[in-house]
């Protein structure tokens, strides 16, 4: 896999990170070198291995479905960057 600026910009868009041109340029050789190393996984024979069973833990018993108090609204909103005391505020995503 050869990492290009186009690939870095595509992945950054998927990850919702607006990289500057300088950041993109720096990221290309770094990711290229890292991917060159981790591609060694391709050389391991995994014919009989199930990727899903890599999950380390046998499925835990579900806890009882009992209603419990949740955090108070004012406590939750206290950490938000923008609220109207009732809702989180975000830019409009639907047209009027």
């Amino acid at each position: 896999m050869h990492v290009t600026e186009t690939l870095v910009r595509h992945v950054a868009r998927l990850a919702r990170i607006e990289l500057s041109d300088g950041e993109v340029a720096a990221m290309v050789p770094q990711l290229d070198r890292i991917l060159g190393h981790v591609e060694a996984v391709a050389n391991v024979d995994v014919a009989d291995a199930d990727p899903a069973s890599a999950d380390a833990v046998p499925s835990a018993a579900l806890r009882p479905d009992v209603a419990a108090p949740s955090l108070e609204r004012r406590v939750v909103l206290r950490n938000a960057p923008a609220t109207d005391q009732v809702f989180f505020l975000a830019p409009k995503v639907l047209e009027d």
Partner: protein
Amino acid sequence: MTSPLDLPVAEMAARVADRHDSLKAADLVDAALARVRALDGRVRAFLHVAEEGARRAAEALDARVARGEAVGPLAGVPLAVKDNLAVAGMPLTCASKILGGYVPPRDATVVARAVAAGAIVLGKTNLDEFAMGSSTENSAFGPTRNPFDLERVPGGSSGGSAAAVAAGMAPLALGSDTGGSVRQPAALCGIVGHKPTYGRVSRSGLVAFASSLDQVGPFARTTQDAAALLRAIEGPDPLDATSRAFPAARPAAGLSGLRVGVVEELEGAGGDPEVAAAVGRVRAALLARGATAVPLSLPLSKAGIPVYYLVAPAECSSNLARFDGMRYGARVDAPEVEPLYARTRDAGFGAEVKRRVLLGTFALSAGYADAYYKRAMAVKTRLRVELAAAFSRCDVILSATSPFPAFRVGEKAGDPLSMYLCDVLTVTANLAGVPAASVPAGLTAGGLPVGAQLWAAEGHDDLVLSVGAAVREATGLGYVAPAIAKEVA
């Protein structure tokens, strides 16, 4: 003995719990705060010192003792907490700008349990941003320094917790270990650090990095002290579905007949000859006391770093999607929602976090997920099987923890891959879910600590820690205070 802070934790707590003893929790907290004031301007282990809260908690505990109430096995013991664990009312930063101003409304389960056992939270410690790094240099608030040499790194990502214990500022600390982040800084700072079996300790209230690998673990000066903290925090928690109970510990094994695995692929793995010699001395001491060496091969351990640096970034790219400038933390405003997300995340995350999010996003993206992420998960499965087979032939594996002692601040900063290779001896235990601890194995000629790593089969945390105690007895090597710690009482 110059300070009660230097007592074994069990003795410290027993004295605080004894209403007739003159030692009070308030004395321990005052002594710890005095050391922080004297040393932390240079070490920079703490991001937040809870001076007033710690004093209040100590006084409250002393009042309970005076009333004749029972207090727990960590009564009055100052505890440093890695700043990716929630403590109600204290800022939680993950050493990132993106959490700017966030104050969690509740304690992480491990914090609540340690406090219920009597521990006093002294403050929050520095880390590589979101626990991504091996040197504590990737912190938005600047690096932590190694107490043995202030020009060198303490290791990471839990470098602040390790440095706080090594410098004597706190007898106990909590860290998190996703690929070695408790064990490697413990090794570089000359103390004990334990990564418990996956599922032994709840992660509720730990900011998630790579959920299939993350585990909270203790730092201490001795394995006995580390075990005391592990006892307090372990056990199933309804708030973490991966947490579970393990059968009672098997009795501490003597060294006679103990089968010590020596893994061909891990011997001297790209490492420093002084580190290899130190681990060799530990092995020789165990064998001289009746243990037997079992030569082993773990061919897939060579794939540990490639697997880890696909699986962990993939999971982090998903876990860190929650930092979007909406519900908590910093926000860079924009007229539309997509640029708001993307600008907030560009401004809020540091370079290493962005690198890993991009790497993980790539490994999970359409067209590449089969060749990268799924392939890595399949190798992870094979690795677990290979390690389980190894533990049918030996009781513990002995290796180095880090290939080299503490390196200089800035030495690896320009080369992310060389930093990743610091984890070559530690990631395998995370990928396989098994317990592993780093214990002190002496100092190099230059006075830098070296750590020996002990691993065991799933659930055998107590075996790891009891063999760690036996290593100390057999070698006479254990925590020694760095020169800087001797400047203060």
